[in-house]
């Protein structure tokens, strides 16, 4: 059974339709890549999954149960962890504070939740170790870290949620080659652990390296869905650019 089932998901921002009737299944243990041109609606779709937007129409189910998230907190509690394109880290807070923001480990004394800072720092050190990320000063504010290091912090956050679905919006866009390799390896490892991973990327070769399945959005619609083994970069690119005959036919029909 699919972990996440999306049916007829539509999102309008005023007069603009950013998503139109998207049907999509995401399975456990797979890396599903979501591709599409700028403005195709990828970020909008994942923001609905993550509880940051609510859909105008359509239904979402997780493990068969209909869900409706009214905040990112709801989505996190349902096991959806999201690494946003714009990362959503608080630059003025430390790594540990960011990793645990909104779900701190606390010990209640007389009803007051006191932070267990040491426990959180130790957990973060473990996670960074697991990620093979080298950060000299974990107490430094995240604003002073490099792009790759910030990406690692965002991934720590997702790992720490023990999520069923990890969504990554262009996780390697700002990274150098070596760091990109690490993030891709990690993406596979998450899937092997049984997570479902939804990966958004503009880099076709990265996608072909890690994805099990590929979905293409264009102008708010899902226009193609392929097993990686059953397709090639050329075909996917032609879907993205709209050069593929199927896309032409579809767009003719919708005019």
């Amino acid at each position, binding site marked *: 059974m699919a972990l996440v089932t999306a049916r007829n998901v539509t999102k309008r921002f005023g007069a603009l339709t950013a998503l139109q009737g998207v049907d999509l299944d995401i399975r456990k243990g797979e890396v599903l890549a979501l591709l599409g041109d700028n403005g195709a609606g990828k970020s909008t779709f994942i923001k609905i999954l*993550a509880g*940051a937007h609510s859909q105008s129409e359509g239904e979402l189910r997780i493990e068969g149960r209909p869900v409706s998230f009214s*905040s*990112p*907190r709801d989505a*996190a509690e349902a096991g959806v962890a*999201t690494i*946003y394109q*714009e990362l*959503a*880290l*608080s*630059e*003025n*807070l430390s790594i540990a*504070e*960011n990793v645990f*923001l*909104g*779900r*701190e480990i*606390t010990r209640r004394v007389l009803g*007051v*939740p*006191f*932070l267990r800072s040491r426990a959180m720092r130790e957990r973060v050190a473990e996670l960074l170790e697991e990620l093979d990320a080298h950060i000299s000063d974990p107490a430094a504010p995240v604003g002073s870290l490099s792009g790759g290091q910030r990406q690692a912090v965002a991934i720590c*956050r997702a790992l720490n949620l023990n999520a069923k679905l990890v969504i990554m919006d262009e996780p390697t866009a700002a990274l150098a080659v070596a760091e990109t390799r690490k993030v891709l390896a990690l993406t596979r490892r998450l899937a092997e652990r049984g997570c479902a991973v939804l990966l958004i990327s503009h880099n076709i070769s990265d996608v072909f390296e890690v994805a099990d399945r590929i979905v293409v959005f264009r102008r708010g619609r899902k226009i193609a869905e392929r097993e990686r083994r059953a397709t090639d970069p050329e075909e996917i690119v032609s879907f993205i650019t709209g050069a593929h005959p199927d896309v032409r036919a579809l767009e003719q029909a919708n005019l």
Partner: protein
Amino acid sequence: MNLRRILTLSSRELTLAAACLVAIIAFSMVSDHFGTATNLTTILRNSVELLLIGLGMTLLLAMGGIDVSVGVAMGLAAIGVGKVLAAGFGALAAALVGPLVGAALGIVTASVVVLGRIPPIVATLGLFGVFRTAIFLWLGGQWLSGLPTDLTAIVSSSFMGVPLMAWTIAAAYLVIWVALRRTPFGPHLLAVGNSETKARLSGVSVRKVQFSAFVINGALCGLAATFYVATYRNVEMSIGSTLALEAIAAVVLGGTSILGGRCSLVGTVLGVLLIRILQNGLLLVGVPSLWQTVVTGGLLIAVLCLDALSGRMPVSIWRRRPA
């Protein structure tokens, strides 16, 4: 707990402490009266309300908020305290009325800002107008004066040689320090100050944080009102008219960012002391009291300019940081 980190002051705080010292030395050289124990005690006494309100303002600025109605909120709470005193309900009731009325006003402010989604500077300016008139109407055009002495004990009594008011301020400081540095409230507040959107995406209950900060701020204004009435035993029409400016100036002087995301409680205390030392000293050397607000306003503008020039703040403060 790391004692060293607690005792370590930032360079901003050290500068401010040095400024206080320099001011004290300079005024002592010009005025014979300035350095006397009586006068220094007066300065501390005059700092009580501003210290409490400054602590609340620190929380608000740290989360990217502000409240320009703190002075009149204190005024309203002070009338509450005065009326309860005058009606003969006794010291305990009168003392509690301050923080209670303050917290209630805090809930009003929080509701307008948070539920009404109105920028705090505009919302509290509107409330300033409302509270101002409420003070006038409630006082009925007449000062409360010559109130009963039931609350005088708060001013005169001390514990282990330290006045009760100082203990209360220390307790308020400690509670806020613990909330900021030892509970999730601290990182949540600073995350909201950095970016509401990012804080929300990270699972912070932004509205809860904003609501709490405004209510705490209101309760502190009310506590200040209790001390005010206990000391002066009267409530005049113009009560608290300079407090908002002074509180914002003290907090910004102390190194809390006017744009949110960074705060210093020690800095706020030092900022309050510096403002009160300057006001007292200038008065003693013969500067008319009319100039006090000019000095405070000038300090606020000067420190914001210096911060902008030294890169502590984004170049343009006209546009908020992008979310």
